[in-house]
């Protein structure tokens, strides 16, 4: 037996992708390792989801439920409590090895695969934070799951490193559940979270935000439980400035220092990886360098808005259906290159074998720009431009324009021109 599409991961991305493929009358099997669909949305109990997709504001679980209902109405096949442990390609077929208590170890074949496996949190180890290694230093997302799903508080007195949205939202949650939150430190001179979260999670509760600060020492008590942390201001090159030390006695340090696409499943396939997004490179159809292997959501690029995840994954699902309908004739491809003030772009390739009307490019700026123009060049030729205000690295930008005018012999460059 061979299924048309296997979708790996049943969060916001996988649900939207599976729904759009199913609507094109393809056979879909979605695999989820947790015991329910919805992914991380289930622990994001705050509101702010859905304004773009539903024109209404929902909490994470509500937003997930909208998609789960549609998913169930379409009678899409899925497996819960099931982990994909291996993904390989034999000729034109993908072989997905799953493992679960119910099914044991089993191989399932598919004509196409959509990776929607989300991302994981950067940990203390990845930033080489100095000091001891006590209990009490924990990623914000893990603490969020403990708090919102299980009802366990990880501490009574907390400090937060990193101003990513999860960190800000956890500052408010812990405060409202009775913990004392002493502050948030951010190594960059600007916040990495959305503005609204600075206002309603920190300012509302007088929680101080220390910009250009980082944690430079971690102390533990005799039993190796966190006792105190020290933060320090950093210079432009992120070196701590002596004399700026502030010590906080806390039992918890939450880390909100970044999310990294989880593409460990692609290890056995030789996909081309973008060092900037830390995920697979794709063409405009969300297809990786392995034909028939698609990727979307936070496993492609870390999003700040779930609405964009849904929209993107829905497009990826449609492209997967196109692939199954042989609408794709491999042709020449050109690079899409991040230019001035751009951190990364996705897609990284434009493949002329896909028949589309519009080219949609997501990108992040490499610095804060109050007013800017996003410009797309092919060679010296300006092919698209649009004004943007308050462009910050924390917020993903998307542009969309027709590309019939583009030629297949020169690369495309995306730039942000500061005004």
């Amino acid at each position, binding site marked *: 037996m061979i299924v048309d599409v296997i979708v790996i991961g049943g969060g916001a991305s996988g649900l939207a992708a599976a729904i759009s493929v199913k609507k094109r009358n393809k056979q879909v099997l979605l695999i989820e*390792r947790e015991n329910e669909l919805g992914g991380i949305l289930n622990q994001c109990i705050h509101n702010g989801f859905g304004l773009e997709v539903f024109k209404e504001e929902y909490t994470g679980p509500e937003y997930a439920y909208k998609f789960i209902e549609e998913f169930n109405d379409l009678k899409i096949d899925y497996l819960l*409590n099931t*982990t994909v*442990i291996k993904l390989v390609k034999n000729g034109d077929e993908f072989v997905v090895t799953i*493992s*679960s*208590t*119910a*099914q*044991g*170890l089993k191989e399932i074949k598919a004509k196409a695969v959509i990776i929607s496996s989300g991302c*994981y*949190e950067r*940990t*203390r*180890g*990845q930033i*080489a*934070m*100095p*000091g*001891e*290694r*006590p*209990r009490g230093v924990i*990623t914000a*997302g*893990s603490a969020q*799951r*403990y*708090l919102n799903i*299980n*009802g*366990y*508080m*990880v*501490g*009574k007195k907390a400090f937060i490193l990193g101003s990513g949205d999860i960190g800000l939202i956890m500052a408010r949650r812990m405060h409202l*559940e*009775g913990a004392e939150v002493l502050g948030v430190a951010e190594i960059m001179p600007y916040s990495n979270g959305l503005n609204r979260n600075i206002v309603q999670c920190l300012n509302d509760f007088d929680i101080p935000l220390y910009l250009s600060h980082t944690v*430079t020492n*971690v102390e533990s*008590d005799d*039993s*190796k*439980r966190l006792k105190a942390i020290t933060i320090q201001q950093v210079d432009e090159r992120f070196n*701590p400035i002596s004399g700026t030390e502030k010590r906080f006695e806390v*039992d918890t340090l939450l880390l909100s220092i970044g999310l990294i696409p989880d593409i*460990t499943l692609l*290890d056995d396939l030789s996909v081309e990886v973008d*060092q900037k997004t830390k995920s697979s490179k794709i063409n405009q159809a969300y297809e990786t360098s392995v034909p028939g292997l698609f990727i979307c959501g936070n496993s492609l690029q870390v999003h700040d808005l779930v609405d964009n995840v849904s929209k993107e994954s829905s497009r990826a699902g449609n492209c997967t259906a196109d692939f199954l309908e042989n609408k794709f004739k491999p042709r020449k491809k050109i690079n899409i290159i991040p230019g001035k003030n751009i951190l990364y772009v996705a897609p990284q390739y434009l493949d002329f074998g896909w028949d589309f009307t519009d080219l949609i490019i997501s990108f992040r700026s490499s610095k804060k720009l109050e007013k800017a123009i996003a410009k797309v060049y092919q060679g010296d030729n300006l092919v698209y431009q649009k004004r943007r205000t308050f462009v910050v690295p924390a917020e993903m930008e998307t542009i969309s324009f027709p590309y019939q005018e583009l030629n297949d012999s020169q690369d495309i460059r995306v730039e942000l021109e500061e005004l």
Partner: protein
Amino acid sequence: MYDYIIIGAGVVGSAIARELSLYQAKTLVLEKENDVANVQSLANSAIVHSGHNPEPNSLKARLSVWGNKLYEEMEKELDIPLLRTGAYVVAHNAEEERQLEELTELARINQVPEFKILSFEEALKDEPNLSKTVTKVLSLPTTKVTYPWEVAFAAMENALINGVEFIKNALVTGIKKEFDYFVVTVNNHIEYQCRYLINSAGVASDDIAGLIEKNVPFHITGRKGEYFVIDKRAKGFVNHILYPLPTELGKGVLITPQYHGEILLGPNSELVEDKYLPTTSFAGLAYVKEHAAMLADNIPFNQIIRSFAGIRSTADYDDFYIKESLEVKGLFHLGGIDSPGLTACFAIAKYLVNEVMNVDNIYQLNPDFNPYRKKRVMFHKLSDVEKQVLIKEEPMYGNIICKCEKITEKEILEAMRGPLGSNTIKGIKKRTRAGAGLCQGGYCEEKIVKMISKEFNLSPMDIAYDKENTKLFTQETKVLKK
């Protein structure tokens, strides 16, 4: 009344416990931590050295060459993991090549097997990422890598099934000698008695000695080593252990492939004031990166998943100090067991028992001694066919709890059970590697909490990371306060 009390359950204390269980003697092991292998044995390079660099005729030289050989036996008896990497000691220029020749001479005198000098080109064949600045290499094929936590678990588990007793969270706070026996006070209020006392307290060994001796014959200073761990996805980046030339500070910053596929960079070597305080620093970790880069090109620094520090217990005595106390008869010290302590641990145990304590003159052999330990299933290392067979017998092998290291529900259950079962997050991580991978437990810890809670009928509020006071949670939400 015990015949022997061993203070400290690192790799050395555990190996001694196992060696003593060969005899009809009653042995108790006291450990201040909540698990075996929790201080010096917890954080080190995991290398079984060939014995190439200790001073000839020293105990370190003899016991490391011997210890290295014993690992081959222990692999069979105790199912101790071994990764036969071999090692390259590298030279970069004429002066270093001269030092490399001196080192080769030491290896010859210490009777290290199979060593040989390789040209850069020869070495490059097996190590494509060897630094292009290297000119010559001393190859040491018997150098290998083990898994230090498993060494301690294996030795202690085997000791326990052969009759040894083990108490954790037992800090020795007093030692007295009454006539011909010792009274050892634990946690200030519990007393145990024994005929012979073995001080294998590692970093604390001088403090333990100080509880009964006026003039402690050695003094321990902490020498801190900082490390980076590179994710196992970089496996194969180097295949041998790469050493620089040794200096008076030790063996230097190494690149060491690990048994489970990660790659270790480090350690630096820094004397510290507080020997109980393993901290990392910006400067120390920068030093590690800089020096590792002298051994290999293209180090995948972007795949670092963890940094940590370990403390080596260096004595002001030039060798391992393995002797009976000069002041108190029946008290035996194992002082200054720094590197190559892990290499030598099984040889240290045999040397202590047979040549220092002469146990065979005192006690009969234990006729029921079982040298074998039940194999631990490492599910992800099995072939698909073997996996299928096991899952059929036990469906819980199908449930992946730690997705990074692919550790199954059944393996975690096993880690909670058995003679050395653990009910802490760290204990389970040490036994199974759940939480040791890319996400560092961010995903699986919650699932393990639930499993511990169920297995031990513990409220999640009472589950600890490691020691008693390291409870994971402070309270439940929405629980009305009285």
